[in-house]
């Protein structure tokens, strides 16, 4: 037998009661189910029965209410519950990043120091060697020139590493 307005009104009353309980419980699964039930009511009710379109409007309004409660719970209340820990974690990771950056900088400094020490020593030794070479002989001249070039090369590397 075809449903009357009263049948539909009675069905909707039950659904609205379920929706109210689901929202009061703030249970997402229950709210989702209640939302689906109201959507099914709108889809299945016969709009040709006088007054049913108005019942559909009531159901539709209630669906939006359910959606708002679902959104409020998920996007506000649930997020708020964990917000206090965030600032502490941000600080923790930022501090560690600073420690890591310091370690990397120290490593780079150590690298510069190591290279600089070695280069300074090498250049000093080469200078001593250059000063000791007799430049009056052809081989001596050649060696002094080679040493100058080598000193320049080492100094260039030292500068490059230091920057």
């Amino acid at each position: 037998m075809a449903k009357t307005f009263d049948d539909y009104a009675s069905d909707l009353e039950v659904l609205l009661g379920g929706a109210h309980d689901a929202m009061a419980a703030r249970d997402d699964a229950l709210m989702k189910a209640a939302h689906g039930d109201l959507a099914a009511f709108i889809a299945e009710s016969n709009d040709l029965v006088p007054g049913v379109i108005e019942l559909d409007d009531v159901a539709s309004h209630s669906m939006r209410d359910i959606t708002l409660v679902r959104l409020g719970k998920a996007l506000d209340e649930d997020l708020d519950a964990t917000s206090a820990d965030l600032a502490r974690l941000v600080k923790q990771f930022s501090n560690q990043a600073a420690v890591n950056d310091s370690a990397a900088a120290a490593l780079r400094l150590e690298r510069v120091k190591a290279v600089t020490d070695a280069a300074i020593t090498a250049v000093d030794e080469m200078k001593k060697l250059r000063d000791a070479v007799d430049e009056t002989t052809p081989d001596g001249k050649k060696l002094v020139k080679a040493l100058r070039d080598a000193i320049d090369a080492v100094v260039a590397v030292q500068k490059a590493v230091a920057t």
Partner: protein
Amino acid sequence: MTPSLARLRRSGILAFALVAAGACRTPPDVSSFASATSDLAASIKTSERTVSAELTTLAKAWPKEQKELAASIAASFQRQWSARDALADALLEYSASLVAIVQAGNEGEQSARALAGSFQQLCSAIDVAMPPAGAVEAAVNLGASLYAKFAQHYAATTLGEGMREMQPYADEASKLLAGSLSSIATGLDAIRDQIRQNVEDELVGDEKVSSERNRLKVLRKRRVDLLGETEAVRERTRAARADLASHPTAETEKSLAQAGSALSALESEVASVEASLQTQTAILAPYDARETDDERRLSTEIELVMTARDGLATWASAHARIATAALEKRPLQVDDLVQTAQQIRELARALQAGRKD
């Protein structure tokens, strides 16, 4: 070997040996980790923009009171999420600092090799007159090698110890952000459920889409009923025709005429209902298409959020594995994390392509 060259060799070795450590430990490659962190951080930020955009669209045509409530939720959500964005930024900064340590360690080797190269040039020069220079070159190369090992060892140890200390926080951050993304997925699911009804509530002329759909449903049912009736009348016509053939009386002739007339009327009504069905389907087609598009878009958005959420657990696990690999000098596998990052990129691309369509 001249005294000068001997001094040169000794001092060269000494300079490197001073900074060299005994054990060799190469820092693991953390670039994949940093890249995945970047993808995860990007998806955390994208999630906020996605939800905010969907919320605005969702409530656009709602009654004033409900629209204002939706706007208030959107504002609270943005405020809450900015703290998640800050954590995502901190994770990015942290992963960049891990890369900086590894790079500093590896650049140590490059610098040492560069200096060794210049010594080689020196040795070549000295070799013009002094053959023992080859020994100096070998010594300097050894020094460079020792320094490289020191730099890598220092980087690996610093990296491993630092990451091990941070592991509880990495786990906590991963869990907290995953929970937050779950909340977003729930919110997007609520939007997906509602946005379909929003379309159903739109007006086509004076009627709601849901009423037009109701009409379509009634027409479909009428068509099924009519087809059933038509088949029954057709059967009755066949029987009347057979009856007339075997008993040709005025009564059987009248029965056949009545059945034929009923069949004709039914076929005419079926044709009329078919035409109405086509019209009704055409009216609803653009709304159906929008509902399908909305459903597809929101499903992709939810999938992206869930992938990022699951990726956070993989991220924390990779963090632990890198720390262990650095400390225990073991090869590192973070393929699962790389795969997650790849998935996130693909979903984000699909989402962008869908929005352009």
